[in-house]
């Protein structure tokens, strides 16, 4: 079976600065792929190239191929790519002027969905999928900004799920959260992969080991090694990977 996302010889720049170089790898359907590596190694840049968010930064550009179900995303309209590949950011970013309900419904509503029943159903389903429903079901009209940090991040996950993407990109989704909130999100990622293909960027190796089926190690913009998570952590093929996962640098 072909991979859900296949990238080939992908490089990306910010102005003259090269952030990732010549990366080729696969992201399998219904699996969690983790991308690890020290700060500034290009982890975020890599996943931002997948849903074409990289190019929203002035002077940023990318070269190479990103195939989603064997279609080149750079040949498709960016909006439709982003609807199929959802994204959750490092810092929870609910829309500040919108209620919890409106936040989750935003993706559908701003893409033209007006049917109240459909919106209600999507909000219910997404909040349940993001394991947030029980905590907010009585306060759907409250501001999204009134929630705690961990709840806000799950709200952002619900918002991303509401447009029914095929792939969910998560850019260090737990880095601003406490261990309990982190555990909740990790459980959630485990459930999500039955329906979605998940790509998670993390600088927490334990997290990668806990949630990911496959792990890729990036260093200075290059893909050093990618393998089944267990193999990568127990039998790293590259010396650099071993040094990193044993904490000798990074």
């Amino acid at each position, binding site marked *: 079976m072909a991979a859900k996302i296949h990238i080939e010889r992908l490089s990306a720049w910010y102005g003259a600065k090269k952030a990732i170089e010549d990366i080729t790898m696969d992201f399998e359907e219904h699996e969690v792929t983790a991308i690890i590596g020290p700060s500034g190694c290009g982890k975020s840049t890599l996943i931002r190239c997948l849903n074409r968010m990289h190019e929203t930064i002035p002077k940023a550009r990318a070269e190479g191929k990103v195939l989603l179900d064997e279609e080149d995303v750079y040949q498709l309209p960016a909006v439709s790519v982003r609807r199929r590949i959802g994204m959750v950011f490092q*810092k929870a970013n609910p829309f*500040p002027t919108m209620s919890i309900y409106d936040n989750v419904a935003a993706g559908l509503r701003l893409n033209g969905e007006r049917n109240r029943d459909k919106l209600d159903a999507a909000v219910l389903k997404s909040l349940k999928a993001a394991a947030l429903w029980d905590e907010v079901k009585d306060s759907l009209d409250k501001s999204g900004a009134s929630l705690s940090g961990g709840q806000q991040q799950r709200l952002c996950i619900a918002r991303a799920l509401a447009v029914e993407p095929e792939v969910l990109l998560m850019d260090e989704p737990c880095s601003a959260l406490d261990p309990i909130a982190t555990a909740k999100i990790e459980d959630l990622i485990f459930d999500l992969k039955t329906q979605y293909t998940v790509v998670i960027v993390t600088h927490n190796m334990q997290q990668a080991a806990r949630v990911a089926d496959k792990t890729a190690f990036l260093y200075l913009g290059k893909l050093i090694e990618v393998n089944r998570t267990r193999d990568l952590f127990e039998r790293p093929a590259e010396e650099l990977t071993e040094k990193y996962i044993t904490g000798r640098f990074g």
Partner: protein
Amino acid sequence: MKLALPFTLPPLRFDREGRRLWKDLAMTAAAFVCVVIALIPLGSILIEAGIRGIQAITPNLFLFDTAYGGIGNAIQGTLILIALSSVIALPIGILTGIYLSEFGKGRVGDGVRFFVDVLTQVPSIVVGIFVYSLFLTLALAGLMSTRSVFTTITGVIALTTIMIPFVARTSEESLRLVPVSTREAALALGIPRYRSILRVVLPSGVSGLVTGALLGVARVAGETAPLLMTAYGSFYGFSGLDQPIESLPHTIYTFALDGSPARLQAAWGASLVLVLIMLVISIVSRAIVHFRSVSE
């Protein structure tokens, strides 16, 4: 509740810690004194306008036109000038602000921004003489009557010229305060750029936009200089867009220099009314923004 007095004296010690506490006290006191100094003129203007203005406030002040010592036509004129200028300048100014903040990244954007910056710093009397000369030239060329130089229309054009760059700049600043993360959240949902600007960025920056619009209105509501050469002034009520029109600042100017104590008092009444008009516009628009946003 313990009051956070800035004046609790630190212990009389001059070791490292003691010096730090005394320095802290000195800086706090200096900041406090500066606030008071800054507030003195503001407070005295409001109190003076309040006390003197209230004495002038009688039914006749509002019922009569300036020809008879009242300010009825001036209030009407100012409201008309503000309304017409706002209807033209706010949409243009806000759209320019959106352009500058969302699209104006390259050379063209920098050029427009520089131009707008220069325009906001042009003294209002220069705008006045420009509009005046423009219409005078057109009139002398036979394209219109010389009477069309001093009209409501030229007054509105002058005020609009002052207002647009001001509103554009404040709109740009308030939209730039909307974090990148909020914009990215919208784009990552597959929402087209124009719709994410209209439905996410603008609502997030709306309180700044309203404040900027209000400051723009306030700025032109108090303008006298450009109106002297355009709307000119009138002893009677509004009589057409192609006729001169009275405004509160012009009334204050002419009444205050009139020499009669009664007119001077009426000038204070006009000042108070002008301040109150701004206060009402400010409160009403803030209330609208407040009730439209979701509960925290």
